[in-house]
């Protein structure tokens, strides 16, 4: 699986660069790819042996919490990363997924894993009308609409005590039975969460490569323009929204099965929804692995601060400071910042269009002369004599980057 930082890597420009540069460039890319694969193998191995290396069940449970955060953040990023619609209310779907899973087990006597998928599907169906209504508005309005749903569900879960247990909370039966002890259960859930994250990442990656994904990214950049180019924006947004709601709900259901207890205040909280956004922003929401990295940083920091500052709310202050620093110095997130750093080491800078070599320019101008002459019998309005030279100059030389509008 390629690393997240290569999302904009295109095929090398065909025959544009002189031979030497191409060779060096590809060698650098080969090294980079090798490094990425090595990193992936090492990180993957570390994740797989983590439960064996964890010193005690507490550390193991922190691992599960972080994996659960990663599951939520990756699920959130289907909408946030592709379309740029920032939902602060995704706790609605994780909470609903948790409650649906729990109630399917306790009320309908379903197998826990069937209940988990059933909960996800139920939320996906509910997400259709919710998506149709909320995706009509953009930007800040969408954020507010997304929050409203969480608040409504919080009230419902607290008030409808006969179904949800109200403020008393809801107990969820342990899926592996009573004879599987806590540490053993932690270990199993750690692997289940990791598997879930891998599946979600694989789907994100596949969408990223598809025409569908290109349309979604176009919506993020300029929705009207995308629609004018034939992208059915409404259908695309709704589809990815439902996918995101399904995965978020399953992640919420997994949490319910692992933790064994649901409290409406915690399930339907703005804070959980904000964590999903912050983790993705921190890691880089336009990158595949960004939300995972963000989940590790935020999840670890939260547990670390909680251990050190006890029951006070100081862990939130510390987390806020951390985020402020990242947003100040790496506005696009950690992974894009690292990617930019790596690009600086590149011998031939692919992104720098200002450094066209003399040969490139010469060849380009030659091609312009040959390729785009005016057809017979038509006059160029601006006069083709001196104008043509100007046109070439305009096309071939690249001014320093200007801020747009």
């Amino acid at each position, binding site marked *: 699986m390629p690393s997240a930082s290569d999302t*904009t890597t*295109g*095929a090398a*420009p*065909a025959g*544009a660069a002189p031979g030497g540069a191409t060779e060096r460039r590809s060698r650098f890319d080969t090294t980079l790819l090798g490094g990425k694969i090595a990193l992936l193998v090492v990180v993957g191995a570390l994740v797989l042996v983590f439960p064996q290396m964890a010193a005690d069940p507490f550390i193991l449970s922190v691992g599960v919490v972080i994996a659960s955060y990663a599951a939520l953040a990756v699920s959130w990023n289907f909408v946030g990363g592709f379309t740029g619609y920032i939902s602060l209310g995704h706790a609605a779907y994780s909470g609903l997924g948790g409650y649906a899973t729990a109630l399917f087990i306790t009320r309908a006597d379903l197998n826990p894993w069937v209940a988990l998928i059933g909960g996800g599907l139920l939320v996906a169906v509910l997400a259709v009308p919710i998506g149709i209504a909320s995706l009509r508005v953009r930007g800040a309005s969408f954020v507010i609409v997304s929050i409203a749903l969480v608040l409504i569900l919080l009230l419902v879960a607290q008030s409808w005590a006969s179904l949800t247990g109200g403020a008393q909370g809801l107990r969820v039966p342990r899926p592996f039975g009573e004879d599987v002890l806590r540490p053993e259960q932690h270990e199993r859930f750690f692997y289940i969460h990791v598997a879930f994250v891998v599946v979600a990442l694989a789907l994100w990656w596949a969408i990223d*490569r*598809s*025409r*569908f*994904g*290109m*349309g979604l*990214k*176009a919506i993020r*950049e*300029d929705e*009207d*323009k*995308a*629609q*004018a*180019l*034939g*992208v*059915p924006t*409404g259908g695309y947004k709704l589809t990815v929204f439902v996918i995101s709601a399904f995965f978020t709900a399953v992640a919420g259901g997994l949490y319910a099965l692992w933790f064994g207890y649901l409290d409406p205040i915690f399930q339907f909280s703005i804070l959980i929804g904000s964590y999903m956004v912050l983790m993705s922003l921190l890691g880089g929401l*336009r990158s595949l692995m960004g939300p995972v990295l963000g989940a590790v940083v935020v999840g670890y920091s939260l547990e670390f601060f909680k251990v050190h500052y006890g029951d006070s709310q100081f862990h939130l202050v510390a987390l806020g400071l951390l985020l402020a620093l990242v947003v100040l110095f790496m506005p696009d997130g950690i992974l894009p910042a690292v990617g930019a750093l790596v690009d600086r080491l590149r011998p031939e800078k*692919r*992104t720098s*269009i200002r450094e*066209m070599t003399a040969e*490139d320019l010469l060849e*380009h101008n030659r*091609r*312009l002369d040959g*390729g*785009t002459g*005016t*057809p017979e*019998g*038509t*006059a*160029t*309005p*601006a*006069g*083709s004599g001196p*104008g*043509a030279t*100007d*046109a070439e100059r*305009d*096309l071939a030389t*690249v*001014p320093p*980057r*200007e801020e*747009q*509008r």
Partner: protein
Amino acid sequence: MTSTAPVGGATATATTEPSLETRGLTKSFGGVRAVDGADVTFHRGKINALIGPNGSGKTTFFNCVTGMIKPDSGKVTLGGNDITGKPPHRIAAAGIGRSFQLCRIFPRLTVLENMLVGVRSPSVLHRMGGARNGDDIAKARELLRRVGIDHLESSEARDISYGQQKLLELAGVLMVDPDTIMLDEPAGGVNPALIGRIGTLVRELNAEGRTFVIVEHNMDMVMSLSDHVVVFDRGRPIAEGPPSVVQNDPRVLEAYLGV
């Protein structure tokens, strides 16, 4: 009305069948009638121009035709088919491509990725297919070379110059293979040499059979390029015809100069 093109004769001249028509098209914002019962006919295979003073409703008219704004009343037909009030992506699929007044591209996608957004997808399966497939990329590179910015394909679109962005926008519209191309101020904010280059491209594309509708303030460009000019004032056409006739029409002079 005559079908003789005043300047440039690459276009096949015989046809004057309507391509894009509006009847009684009306759109108000609050108390302002931006488009006021406009009956306009653009001709297939021609370079049609839409001109008029600032605030005469050209861009609103444009947006009503391309589905960005739903008209209050009236009708838009393309080759006889009613497309009134359809969403923009359906109108794009019906064969109308458009550019925007202040050039709009996807700033954080690369030039090549910008090109790959606009692909007509016949089926769900097609949409699930890879965006970076050989056919689409070959077509995108061909069009980028045609407008002269193929050397920039892996640059982010926000990093290229404004003139290059204008060319990118035009090339991106061509990816959808539209029969009718509507350009909103293609010459706005670009240097004279590039205006000439855009004019040449329009002429070439028109010679291949594409219909153009161009909103433009640059009179040199309008008069030298277009076959048919429609003059807008206060939300409706006040004159139309070949450029040589229109530019001497007293109503046009009045609308522009206020005399």
